[in-house]
């Protein structure tokens, strides 16, 4: 019962958030100097004044901003995200084409970062002042501090050029036929982007996991467990870790939007055909309907991601279940 109320509440907040996302972003894009017609003209290597005026009129860009905003919001309420100015295609179609690639990248990077981060955290908590613990910390912080595009290019040079294990760009090999070989090809192409994107978050998760583990390892029931004569491994994995996890999962949920924004850069470096690349192109092109559509879907993904986090928390932490 409690959960349903929470779900309804969250959904309502989510809808209000989406409306705010639309209005704020629309305003922001319109505050930026220049419009899509400048980019279309540039893309064509220059254009005449007549053509520029004609395109502006075609897209309704000659109307007052407030009228444009009203038209846009009204259309979205009718589940119509409009046509891309730049590509002349329905925005929804373009987004659905790319959503799977982004979801695959974001979820795999998030899971990779969580698994590695938790393992490193648990490991480091065993001997908090040991040399290995410091090495782990250093390594993780390096991944966090290095710019994504730099890590990406470095991995490309190492594992595409020097040791050619992975392909340099794209999502699949176009010459491969059949479902299984194609799936393998996608997995092959996914490795480097996933490592790059995940590397930022490993530091966050491992540091928090380490701190949380240290706190739990010092508590009474762990001492009791040890006194019962349980093996150190059982104490760590069964008793301590289970209680140390909730903060990490909460953080992972909060980081969801950060992972998505990280994906923009990773997708560009690895030519991963997802929403991030489309977002970047569209912002540079001032392709308002496409940008708003992407932000709309990203907001949805974040909201759903946060809901999932709540669900997972309920699964792993019985204390949360009691509260609404």
């Amino acid at each position, binding site marked *: 019962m409690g959960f349903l109320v929470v779900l309804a509440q969250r959904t309502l907040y989510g809808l209000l958030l989406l409306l705010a996302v639309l209005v704020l972003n629309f305003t922001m894009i319109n505050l930026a100097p*220049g419009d899509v017609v*400048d980019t279309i003209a540039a*893309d064509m290597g*220059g*254009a005449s004044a007549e053509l520029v005026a004609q395109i502006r009129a075609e897209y309704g860009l000659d109307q007052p901003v407030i009228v444009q905003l009203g038209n846009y919001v009204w259309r979205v309420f009718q589940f119509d995200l409009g046509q891309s100015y730049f*590509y002349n295609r329905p925005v929804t179609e373009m987004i659905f084409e790319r959503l799977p690639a982004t979801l695959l990248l974001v979820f795999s990077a998030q899971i990779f970062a969580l698994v590695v981060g938790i393992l490193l955290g648990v490991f480091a908590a065993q001997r908090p002042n040991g040399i290995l613990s410091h090495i782990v910390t250093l390594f993780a912080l390096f991944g966090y501090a290095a710019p994504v595009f730099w890590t990406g290019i470095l991995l490309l040079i190492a594992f*595409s050029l020097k040791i050619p294990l992975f392909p340099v760009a794209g999502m699949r090999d176009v010459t491969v036929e059949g479902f299984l070989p194609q799936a393998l090809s996608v997995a092959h192409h996914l490795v480097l982007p996933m490592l790059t994107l995940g590397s930022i978050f490993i530091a966050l998760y491992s540091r928090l996991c380490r701190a949380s583990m240290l706190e739990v390892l010092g508590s009474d029931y762990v001492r009791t467990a040890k006194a019962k004569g349980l093996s150190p491994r059982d104490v760590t994995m069964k008793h301590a870790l289970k209680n140390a996890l909730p903060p990490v999962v909460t953080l992972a949920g909060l980081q969801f939007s950060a992972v998505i924004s990280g994906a923009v850069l990773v997708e560009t470096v690895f030519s991963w055909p997802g929403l991030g690349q489309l977002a970047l192109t569209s912002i540079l092109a001032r392709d308002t309907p496409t940008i708003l559509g992407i932000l709309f879907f990203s907001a949805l993904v974040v909201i759903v991601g946060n809901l999932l986090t709540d669900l997972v928390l309920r699964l792993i932490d019985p204390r949360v279940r009691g509260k609404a």
Partner: protein
Amino acid sequence: MKIAVLRHLAIVAGVAALLGTTAKAEDPVRGGTLITTLPQTPRHLNPAVQSGIVTGAPGAQLFAAPLRYDEDWTPQPYLAESWAWSDDGLSMTLNLVQGATFHDGDPITSEDVAFSVETIKANHPFKTMFGVVETVETPDDHTAILKLSQPHPALLLAMSSQLMPIIPKHIYGDGQDPKSHPRNGQDVVGSGPFKFVEFTADQQVILERNDDFFIEGRPYLDRIVYRIIKDASARAIGMENGELHMTTFENTVRNIKRMSENDDLVATDEGYAAIGPINWLAFNTGSDGPLADKRVRQAIAYAIDKNFILNAIMLGLSQESKTGIHPGSPLYYPDVNGYDLDIDKANALLDEAGYEKGADGIRFSLTIDHGNPTTKPQAEFTKASLAKVGIDVTVNSFVDFPTWANKISNHDFDMTWDTVFNWGDPVIGVHRTYDSQNIKEGVIWSNTQQYANNRIDELMAQAGQEIDPDKRAALYKEFQEILAEDLPVYWTNTLPYHTIYNKKVGNPPLGIWSSSSPYDLVFLKE
């Protein structure tokens, strides 16, 4: 003894085999898939209504044009087996090859040529290409006569692949707006050497051999895959590890240098003369400030060491360009003032113009913008150079293209670094920068310098109509001399565009239109 003889024989056989393969390597072979690149996703694949290199590259494979060009600017027959000007230069007769068909099997006729010209004239951004074409007469299926309102020598270059694709009337003439026609990007029906297979945004464009191409035995390749890779470093790594066969329009100098050091790869700057990209420093001559005085503009040019730009910023990979016409063009006139570094002269000119140094050593202040992130070093270098002659420069940081374009096109700037393309004939891509009729607020790459000179306007009007090549060259000579004196922009160098190809690639596209020319001769060795 016996062994020695055998060894000797083996060497002879080896040398013979080697010679055999070298001789054979030049003979084109059928088959294979060429993997090449596009640096951006094209809006669509129909060059009739969209300019630009990412549409032009696959567009030139999908669509044939009346003419094609070699590396010497000489027109070659293509879809037109012959062509002729009338004596008065007011009509151009094209005789189309017999038996040519579109990819859906329908014949290519003069009707399609007429329709293509109309569509391009109405929708293509370069209005000067076909603006003077009044009608296209079609006396029979294989003859098209373009009737002009005035002589227009630029037409010859405008009839090449990048600019005049022959599109099927029965597809694009259905009444829908050609600029947003659904068949521009999907199920494209063309007339060229390769047929449409797939176009997925941000992934790839795939084309396959047109078995019914109107040139017997061509193309040689079975397929072309254009992989869309936006990151220049990723493209370079792909070339180095052999994943890509060829990449064109590369202009990040460090990547070009790295690729050129690889034994499997060849890097060349051949093929960019017609597109003709030139870097320049533009002055807002219409402002009330010091830049309205040509002596100030000349002084600025003298104060900037062009060799530093050519050697240190461009790493010697680009050519010097002394005028607004690309050095690779037959109309380029190099014997004008190149404004080699001369600080004393710069100071003298500024004094003469009445801008004495103040007590703080500063004469006046200016701002400088730059039109893309890659020209930031030039902008910083300009600031440092002009400080030496007492001009205080503030570098405006580059936000993104629309922000810059909005500012420059509304004449809200002092100086800006910019890159502008010639697009073949000066009438198409050069005149727009200096034409006093083309000072249009809100339009980027119009005459944003607000430069006006009656003699220049006259020369452009005459040269645009002059059919005699020598007389035309003389007009453009005077044009370039006056501009080099007036200096509405200070031209420094060509963009370091390079084509990098694996040695496996035979006949890479090195003609004047680079990758925007048909790949029917390209082949893969082995």
